[in-house]
């Protein structure tokens, strides 16, 4: 009232701008009122939408804006559950509501989610409080605002956000260290058990595996997993030692027998004693000591000499008889642990491998196993383990496992030649 014309103009413009700012509210007044909205998200990015709106009992047909076109499996039902006829144009759905008091829109859409690496983003603008259920196993990684509710529904985490421009970020497939540790423990237990069933004594590997289990029980999953893997590695190394010790004992035994048959009885008793110690350590699973004593026995047998007098000769004969008995006893023990006796090595004899027969009998062979068999076929049906390792450039433990598979499948047999392991295709697969 105390304002000039200019002042009144300003106030008019101000009033006008204030009025204009309320226009969206006016537009929002539709033939329907949003009641509730729920999005259930799935791990492939699909969002299942359930949108409930209150409608006018006087309306035969209404137009409702829904979220995230294009959509699949859109079904609209009235408050009695009757499916209604509709037509769509982009986000607008015209429904023959025929006086329904409530309409429920159910559909699937994939246009509300995007993915970057393992992080998914869900974006939507909503006119009503919105419940978002995350995929199973998903973890929230951010959201546009503080939710009014948050919790777990079955196996899904959910959040409820106020209406507006909503964004929810979530991750699927986060590393599950607990599960990985459990898997490593199971695998280690299985692997070590298999080796033990073959007669190997794996004390150290068992001990490490026990530590791994203890770490798992105290929720130290990463360390547990590392320990479990170490247990497997230790078991493999121990088995490799065992194989080597087995070979060394065999070599020492042959040396002792040779010395005995040659009448080199001086020092032979020490060799026999070392050989027995090696055998004892082997049976106890102390393969390193077994190798040491086997080597010692070999050297003692190699350096044994013939006696210089008749009395010594007689004594030597008696000793030889004793050693023969001991040797026989030892060989019986070794044989008890050894696979069926092999074919005598005779490289002069041509051995043509029947690859077709092997592959027909063993159709589930791994690719690398087949390659090794082909290699053996091209090497007169046999090769040393070291040759296989060199040829395929694989570690000792891997080669050992591969050869064990072929032995277990009765495709090849393994024999010790000195300090070497000879792998031969079995006779039944020769032409």
């Amino acid at each position: 009232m105390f304002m000039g014309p200019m002042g009144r103009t300003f106030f008019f413009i101000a009033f006008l701008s204030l009025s204009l700012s309320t226009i969206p509210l006016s537009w929002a007044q539709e033939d329907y009122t949003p009641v509730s909205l729920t999005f259930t998200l799935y791990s492939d990015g699909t969002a299942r939408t359930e949108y409930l709106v209150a409608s006018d009992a006087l309306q035969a047909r209404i137009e409702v804006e829904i979220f995230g076109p294009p959509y699949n499996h859109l079904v609209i039902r009235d408050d009695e559950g009757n499916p209604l006829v509709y037509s769509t144009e982009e986000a607008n759905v015209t429904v023959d509501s025929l006086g329904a008091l409530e309409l429920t829109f159910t559909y699937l859409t994939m246009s509300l989610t995007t993915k970057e690496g393992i992080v998914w983003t869900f974006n939507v603008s909503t006119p009503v409080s919105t419940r978002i259920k995350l995929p199973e196993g998903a973890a929230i990684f951010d959201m546009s605002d503080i939710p009014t509710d948050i919790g777990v529904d079955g196996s899904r985490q959910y959040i409820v956000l106020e209406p507006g421009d909503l964004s929810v970020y979530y991750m699927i497939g986060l590393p599950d260290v607990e599960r990985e540790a459990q898997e490593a423990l199971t695998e280690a237990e299985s692997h070590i058990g298999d080796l033990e069933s073959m007669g190997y004594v794996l004390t150290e590997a068992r001990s490490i595996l026990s530590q791994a289990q203890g770490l798992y029980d105290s929720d130290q999953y990463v360390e547990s997993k590392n320990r479990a893997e170490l247990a497997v590695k230790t078991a493999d190394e121990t088995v490799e030692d065992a194989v080597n010790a087995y070979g060394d004992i065999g070599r020492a035994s042959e040396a002792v027998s040779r010395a005995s048959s040659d009448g080199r009885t001086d020092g032979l008793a020490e060799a026999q004693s070392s050989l027995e110690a090696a055998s004892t350590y082997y049976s106890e699973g102390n393969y390193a000591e077994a190798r040491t004593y086997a080597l010692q026995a070999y050297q003692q047998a190699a350096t044994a000499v013939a006696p210089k007098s008749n009395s010594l000769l007689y004594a030597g004969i008696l000793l030889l008889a004793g050693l023969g008995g001991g040797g026989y006893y030892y060989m019986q023990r070794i044989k008890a642990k050894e696979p069926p006796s092999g074919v005598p090595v005779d490289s002069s004899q041509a051995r043509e491998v029947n690859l077709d027969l092997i592959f027909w009998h063993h159709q589930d062979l791994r690719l690398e196993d087949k390659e090794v068999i082909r290699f053996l076929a091209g090497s007169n049906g046999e090769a040393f383990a070291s040759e296989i390792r060199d040829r395929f450039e694989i570690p000792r433990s891997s080669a050992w496992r591969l050869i064990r598979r072929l032995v277990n499948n009765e495709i090849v047999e393994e024999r010790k030649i000195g300090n070497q392991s000879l792998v031969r295709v079995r006779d039944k697969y020769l032409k």
Partner: protein
Amino acid sequence: MKTKLLALALLLVLLSAPLAQVVYAEEPTGGDDAGDGTDGDGAGDDTNGDGDDGGNGNIDPFVYQQIKEDTEARWWNLYYLYTGQQGDGDDGDGDGDDGGTGEYDGPEIPEDLDPELRNQLMNAWMEMKQAAEMEGENLQTAAQQHLRVMKILRNTWRKYQKDNPDIVDDTTEPPDETGDGGEDDLPPDPTEAELTDIQEQLVKRFQERFRESVTAMFQFYNDVEGDLDPDDAMKAYNALYHTEKKLLQIQERIYAGDFEGTIDDLEEAGSDLDDEYGDMDDPQSAQLFRTATKLQAKIEKMIEKKERKEAQGEDTSGEDDLINQLRGNVDKAKNDHKENKGKGNDNSNGNGKDKEKKPKKEKD
């Protein structure tokens, strides 16, 4: 001059008001940007801000706790992923070095980790600690702080993902989920035949309810006629009369089994009724008829529902209550209108002659 300045200031304030939300929405995450050039992923990528909502907010303590736990879990998830070390949810034992900041007291982060990731992990940890300290003062602000931490972590993830595509690939195996795409959770889509059959029933029932509503509105008209301007009374009567006529025509077609175009006609009948109410001179009277017609339609719908439930032997007390409530609303609208008129708040031309005029009702 003072008035003009005041007016100008007010104008500027009013004009800038709608922009406030935009400015809010674009607020960055503070000084915690990973700085890898990958920050900012478009609209909606921010919380509402700084947590400065004034006061303790009304956040549910349970909700806050969940946000806090989720944030901390993400921190440990990423810590494990980036460092390959154990992330057991331990609260930190103070063995972490401070990275030169003198503040970090979380678990040790290896020196060989990318410096940017290392710094961001430490920042996020310290922000989580600050949020925890704020819990006693303002839970809402503390919650906002946790959301800021999530953003920092998300930025670290972007960088890590960019730098380690192979490792990320190893972690992207989604868990097995029954009904992965959601289709299994949906009931089967109705068939065309089912839809057509149901629609014909619904059209018939809607037409009947509409007609019942109009019949009830004639009674309503009689009740309020005395309170209406004679011209408006005539317009209201004619609106109802026209609508009834159209509905009867539609009914004849429906009974003859001709449903073609009936929904269009029913929609048009409703629209025309609304338009004719709009022709009334007194907006309050027009609004009264509109409101009463809608309420009446809802009453008819509830009566129909009640009858159906009664036929099935179900309890109908809920429907009875609602029907009574709706009827009460009709009476209230009627009374409010009458009172307004009684207070002289009528929109007639005031010469008193119109009051004497009887409405000229159309003849068929």
